[in-house]
């Protein structure tokens, strides 16, 4: 239930901080999301959405740091190749 999904803010509507909403695209599926808990969100940002509410604006620099760190540790030789998405093993 604590799952939250990242989506891109396309458009913001309303001025009242409590009632502000955004149209957010989740890989093409667009939903209306409350921005009451993400007042800093701007068009183009990615927000983490949980049960209709944006709970965090994703920091792209921090997202990149994980991979930079791994690269520096020499743990990641294959990172620059096209990523192969991990699939669940077949049952």
């Amino acid at each position, binding site marked *: *239930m*604590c*799952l*939250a*999904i*990242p989506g*891109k803010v396309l458009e913001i509507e309303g001025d009242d*901080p*409590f009632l502000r909403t955004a149209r957010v695209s*989740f*890989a093409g599926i667009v939903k209306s999301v*409350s921005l*009451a*808990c*993400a*007042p800093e969100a701007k068009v183009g940002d*990615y927000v*983490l959405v*949980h*049960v*209709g*509410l944006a*709970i*965090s604006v*994703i*920091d*792209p620099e*921090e*997202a990149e*740091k*994980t*991979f930079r760190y*791994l690269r520096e*540790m020499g*743990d*990641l*030789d*294959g*990172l620059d*190749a096209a*990523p*192969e*998405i*991990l*699939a*669940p*093993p077949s*049952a």
Partner: protein
Amino acid sequence: MKFVDEFRDAAVVHSLADAIARSTTRPWTVMEICGGQTHAIVKFGLDQLLPPGITLVHGPGCPVCVTPAELIDQAVELALRPGVILASFGDMLRVPGNGVDLLTAKARGGDVRTVYSPLDAVRLAQDHPTREVVFFAVGFETTAPANAMAVLRARQMGIGNFSLLVSHVLVPPAMRAILGAPDNRVEGFLAAGHVCAIMGTAEYAPIAREFRIPIVVTGFEPVDIMEGLLRCVRQLEAGRTEVENAYARAVRAEGNPSAQAIVRQAFTVVDRTWRGLGPIPASGWDLRPELARYDAPRKFALRPAPIGAAGECISGEIMRGVKKPHDCPAFGIRCTPERPLGAPMVSSEGACAAYYRYRQRTPQPVAGAA
């Protein structure tokens, strides 16, 4: 999907698994708190990439699993009252109470509706002014801002036919309860990333200090979980007991101040009884006294439902990390998602549901037994 696909990159996951193996010299038991993390671990087989010494046990971060059966009985009672619409997250509908589940109440004529967001339940109340809409507000800190918003918005808009049946629980008191038990085996925690996105990380420092245990705030994708685990193992190996944030793209140290302010307007800390774990002091939230008219048990003068007998379900031991789903003699035999004995078999975040869906469907044979 941006911020998802790159965190499922198989090469990165395998590199992290190698790094964990290189860092491990002794056996360690680490608990991931959140059921969403449990499902990712079992679904992607992350535990099978780890060196044999690393054991992952699965924590209580499944709101549906820890909601007391007696509250489900109250939800069923409300759903069967004429004029009431009982709105709930879909996950709750199949969870057994002491009597029937909400799906059965629906089959018996109760008006039970599944909603995606508590705000949708407020809209339902607006659309049905002659009915009473009760939202079954379960969840951890992550879900509390949305549930708080629903009641505050109903008050702002003067919607009188809306109320909440609240079963809100908090992660840090449960971690203390797990660590304080005499049979505890948890040596490191992966803290629940989205709970920390709301609340920040300050609450965890005293726990790390007091119980001398590393706590790593961790996300939900395979790369996140492996990175959280690597950091946790490195702390354990080095004898460090710190709070680290391995999910900094979503979690700030101070959390989300707007969300915290909304939660404070609606909720106050109370003692809660957790299904499987029992009573834990100051471990939940309930509506503030000034919002009493949105509190369904008061509004409908519900009596506390009688406490049911403890059944065969060992969910408490599983959620404390003492046992795993395959240790349960009922797993996959007398307890299945279609006929569950306990909540972890039905919730999309329950450990038993994850093992049933992605692993062998019967108890593992005991070593040495015929």
